[in-house]
């Protein structure tokens, strides 16, 4: 019983423990091992996950009406909805802690996350776009996402000391990564070479957009497309 259920409330188990010091000590050891194990597996849930769980439910009612939606398309849509909706509903959910005004910290977080997660899933584009539009329309705002033929995926990720949207676009010169980190927009747009990447930190409504690319051309292309599709409203 000590090994099966050390916290058992079984009367005979408890009574025996009271009369047998060896067994009582043994049960104590097992309980301590359990407690140590629980402590070793303790992890704090990200603060924004709660908000996303709630948001998913709000969006799902509309998504149910589209029979062929695939799960990952829903996830993409939620991420992009957060991405766009964040600008307009900045207090609806807290995606991250307030950002520091240090450009390098922002870049370091995003680039570190990119390097840690080199494999990026590619999603079925047309369906993802349709779903995103349907969800945005049901979001109760005038938001409408323009078709992005090269949107590949998006999700909320930890990026250094921040959390934000991590997404990618396919460009003529390869995949570029962009990240939206909610917080105080930095004062100026900054183009800088960072750890072998061409990067742009761009203040947008409600936060900062970071574009990470291998070439200046693909960075410009991505920035242009995002501005057209996402209504960055600089």
């Amino acid at each position, binding site marked *: 019983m000590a090994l099966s*259920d050390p916290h058992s409330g079984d009367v005979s188990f408890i009574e025996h423990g009271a009369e047998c010091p060896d067994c009582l000590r*043994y049960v104590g*050891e097992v309980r301590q*091992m359990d407690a140590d194990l629980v402590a070793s597996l*303790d992890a704090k*849930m990200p603060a924004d*996950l*709660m908000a996303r769980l709630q948001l998913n439910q709000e969006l799902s009612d509309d998504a149910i009406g589209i029979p062929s939606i695939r799960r990952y398309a829903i*996830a993409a849509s939620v991420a992009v909805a957060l991405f766009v909706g964040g600008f307009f509903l900045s207090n609806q959910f807290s995606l991250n802690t307030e950002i520091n005004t240090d450009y390098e910290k922002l870049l370091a977080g995003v680039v570190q996350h990119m390097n840690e997660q080199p494999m990026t899933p590619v999603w079925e584009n047309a369906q993802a776009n349709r779903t995103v539009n349907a969800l945005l329309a049901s979001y109760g705002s005038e938001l409408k996402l323009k078709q992005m033929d090269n949107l590949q995926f998006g999700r909320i990720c930890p990026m250094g000391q921040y959390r934000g949207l991590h997404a990618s676009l396919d460009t003529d010169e390869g995949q570029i990564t962009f990240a939206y980190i909610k917080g105080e927009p930095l004062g100026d747009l900054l183009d800088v070479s960072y750890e072998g990447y061409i990067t742009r930190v761009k203040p947008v409504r409600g936060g900062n957009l970071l574009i990470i690319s291998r070439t200046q051309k693909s960075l410009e292309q991505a920035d242009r497309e995002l501005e057209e599709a996402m209504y960055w409203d600089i």
Partner: protein
Amino acid sequence: MSENSNNSDDQQVTYHMVDKKRKYALLIEAHAQDLYKYALWLCKDKNMAEDVMQEAFLRAWKSLDSLREAKAAKGWLFTIFRREHARQFERKQFQYQDVESMDTIADTKMGYDDSPEAFALRNALQKLHPDYREPLEMQVLGGFSCSEIATILEISNSAVMTRLFRARKKMRHILVHESAPELGLVRGSSS
């Protein structure tokens, strides 16, 4: 079961009358944290854990009307999660880390205690056969009773007791003889 899911009898009686949105909010509030720990351990990846959790809660929302009692909520939710995890695992195996590749650095990135003692305990748990590890995870992480585990795993109560017995016995053996005896995590004999 956690205290949050053990509502009073009165609350149990009226639970089915609670507004769906309120019921869902209660579900998140009461069980999301426990489920996150369980998810993180199963997925070994923060992003994957969050993805599977979100999907599980979405499914829970869609079938919330079938949940009649608050006391059954946690087991019901964990069952949904386990099924979703199995589905995602089939689809995204490439995103999972090998047990062999687990290290203290990866553990730290997941937010776990990075002490040698904590690592040794996680390592010992991971070394258990899945048949034994699973009920132990449910008992220590989910706080489920033996009968609840039996229901979730669809095995007999005695089978759960046997598996838990073997799981802890093996854990103690690993901690005493294999993993890190110098840490003194378990003082007694493994037998």
